[in-house]
């Protein structure tokens, strides 16, 4: 049975700008928003949009991601025909190769796509926080009788030169593509989400592969080639919440925005567009009589005896009596001992922060910086971690790291 549209999710990125958080983890597997991982967003969007076949292209540190995806049941993607499939590079009779670029990753999986004989293929990226109805995007694609459509966001003109930009006419037909230009002609930034007619995509992937000078990248090669040939290319305007969480500050900021859905626009509480995730299976959280909790999100398994303000605690986090957590993102099973002060930072999973240790600091006027503690690290008693620190090894009792 042919599928109308299947999704290919690019999840192979190393996410090197998340440093310690992605040393042992692919970027799409990075925890987000109290009980999710980044990849929950595109996967849930797929299911909520009616897409039941998703190929996930992985190659960097795939273990956690593979286990997390499993058979896809949490996203209702355990299907007899279709469902979710993790697609690492594999050896073929002609030899084997890592995915050389985003386009090459799809090229190597042409046989996978052909199994489902789809009319359309949507290319998604595994490192964005966004709630989007892909079926509306497909409707646009069909209405325009397009061969290629890209989802675009209007960005402020002063930021435009940081993005890949689509220049489009009044009918939204794309006339020019600018990759991070010095002098932007448009403020329509590509979100890296594309819908292709499969026959067109297939042709360009094969041609691109045959070109030895190509970087095998959608943005640098495939899209310019389509333009050159005057293909029917359209820009689909998306105006909801969208955030690339590729850096520590943007990841921290996106988490904080979850705490303020009224203004930020990222509403996870929408019953009509649930974000699914694999469950921790822990018991309800406890907030004791000595605790103080303000403007925070807390999930199963947490035990709060101290103060938690404007923070997100993931499953199983313990905040002992007298400890203070403020403006912080604390990932699963981390323990914050009594008297510790943890502020303006991201703390990875399974971290122990010793008694009276200090991690991060509230930035003073004009300062920036989010302290980051990598997963599994132990911060000793009375140790100090500075406001911009990136901690990947244990910090011993009383020591300081800036």
């Amino acid at each position, binding site marked *: 049975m042919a599928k109308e549209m299947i999704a290919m999710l690019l999840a192979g990125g190393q996410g090197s700008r998340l440093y310690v958080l992605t040393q042992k983890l692919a970027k799409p597997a990075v925890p987000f928003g109290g009980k999710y991982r980044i990849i929950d967003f595109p996967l849930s969007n797929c299911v909520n949009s009616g897409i039941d076949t998703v190929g996930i292209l992985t190659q960097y540190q795939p273990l956690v991601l593979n286990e997390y995806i499993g058979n896809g049941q949490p996203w209702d993607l355990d299907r007899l025909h279709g469902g979710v499939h993790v697609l690492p590079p594999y050896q073929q009779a002609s030899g084997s190769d890592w995915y050389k670029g985003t386009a090459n990753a799809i090229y190597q999986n042409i046989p996978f796509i052909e199994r489902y004989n789809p009319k359309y293929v949507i290319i998604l990226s595994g490192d964005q926080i966004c709630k989007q109805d892909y079926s509306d995007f497909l409707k646009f694609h069909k209405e325009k009788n397009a061969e290629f459509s890209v989802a675009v966001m209007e960005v402020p003109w002063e930021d435009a030169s940081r993005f890949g930009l689509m220049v489009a006419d009044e009918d939204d037909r794309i006339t020019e593509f600018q990759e991070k230009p010095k002098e932007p002609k448009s403020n329509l930034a590509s979100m890296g989400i594309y819908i292709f007619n499969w026959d067109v995509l297939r042709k360009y992937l094969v041609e691109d592969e045959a070109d030895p000078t190509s970087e095998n990248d959608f943005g640098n090669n495939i899209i310019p080639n389509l333009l050159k040939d005057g293909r029917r290319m359209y820009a689909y305007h998306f105006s909801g919440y969208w955030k690339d969480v590729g850096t520590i500050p943007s990841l921290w900021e996106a988490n904080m925005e979850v705490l303020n859905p009224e203004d930020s626009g990222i509403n996870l509480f929408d019953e009509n567009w649930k974000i699914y995730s694999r469950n921790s*299976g822990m018991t309800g959280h406890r907030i004791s009589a000595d605790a103080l909790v303000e403007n925070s999100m807390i999930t199963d398994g947490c035990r709060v005896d101290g103060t938690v303000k404007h923070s997100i605690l993931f499953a199983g986090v313990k905040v002992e009596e007298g400890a203070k957590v403020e403006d912080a993102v604390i990932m699963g099973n981390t323990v914050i001992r009594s008297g510790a002060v943890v502020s303006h930072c991201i703390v990875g999973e399974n971290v122990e922060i010793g008694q009276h240790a200090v991690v991060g600091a509230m930035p003073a006027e004009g300062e920036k910086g989010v302290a980051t503690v990598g997963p599994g690290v132990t911060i000793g008693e009375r140790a100090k971690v500075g406001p911009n620190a990136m901690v990947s090894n244990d910090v011993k009792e009383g020591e300081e790291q800036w």
Partner: protein
Amino acid sequence: MVNSNADALGIIFPNSYDSLVPELTSERLMASIPFASRYRMIDFILSGMANCGIDNISIVVRKNYHSLLDHLGSGRAWDLTRKNGGLNIIPPFAQKAVKIYHGRVEALASILTFLKSQKEKYVVMSDANIAVNFNFSDFINTHMNSGADVTVAYVKAEVPAKAVEENPTSDTFSYTLRIEDGRVREIRINPKDAGVQDFSMNIYIIDRELLISQIESAYVKGYIYFERDILEPQLDTLNVQAYEHTGYAARICDMKSYFDENMKLLDAKNLDALFEGNPVYTKIRDDTPTRYITGAKVNNIMAADGCIIEGDVENSILFRGVKIAKGAKVKNCVLMQDTTVEEGAQLEYVVSDKNVHITAGKELKGTDTFPVFIAKKQTV
């Protein structure tokens, strides 16, 4: 054969003791009563069995079981979606000649064909009225090593006042044991003895072949109750051993004990004791984490995911999706799934069932011995 699984199949009677909490069982059964902020009563026994490698579990339902079917689904949450065995829900056979069963003898007689076709050597049976992290592995091993015909689990506890006072009606018997050197010598039915007793948990293990022969002969004689009609008269000939459960156990005997057992979990010691060791699984609802909005004041609570809290909450248990608006005050309450409390409402000693709606400014107050109960989907 490599076998990490137990050589026992499980049978759970989800309707036992329904009539003790008529308020909570008007539209459900004992097994699906919500407990401990995100669970249903059956989750504890079911997870306990699954965690100990019992992967062939039958649930013999009697009535009001829609909520249970919805909760259990295919059994995936307990990893019981198996080709062989797995979760097996047995509804009453709708036929004129077949009555809804009363006691365990009738219930087991109705599944004799099934029992005969199974391969496991032992059968483990339990009700669902006790929230407990029960170690079925140890229970099964103890039984195997003792050479007993039957082993019954008990706790040292007082028989609840209500059970003592109650006229014996069909499914509310409580049993205490007189034990000599580990062997049960007497089973007392609805005893009037005061103080701590060896109080049966109604968790049994018995050889499957023995169970089949006992049920066959009891059923033709018109017997109804396993304890009263099979065990008690044969205590001299059957070797019935007692197994003490020393861990935490929360038994639901009436509305008061339901309230108290929930509240007890606000003490971290009790919470740890109930949930230590093996995980307790439940149906996944995919709620977001609970959100505490600026202005919320919380003090000594346990809450599940999906709550939005803007008001004051003290000494309370909040189930999934509870919403408490600004200016509302909730104290000493157990609020089940999706209860909403509007602005300025004040609740004290209230147990609200699912989807209860308390409109703005209402005041409801019970006492610690008599919490106010608000039935499912009611608007105050």
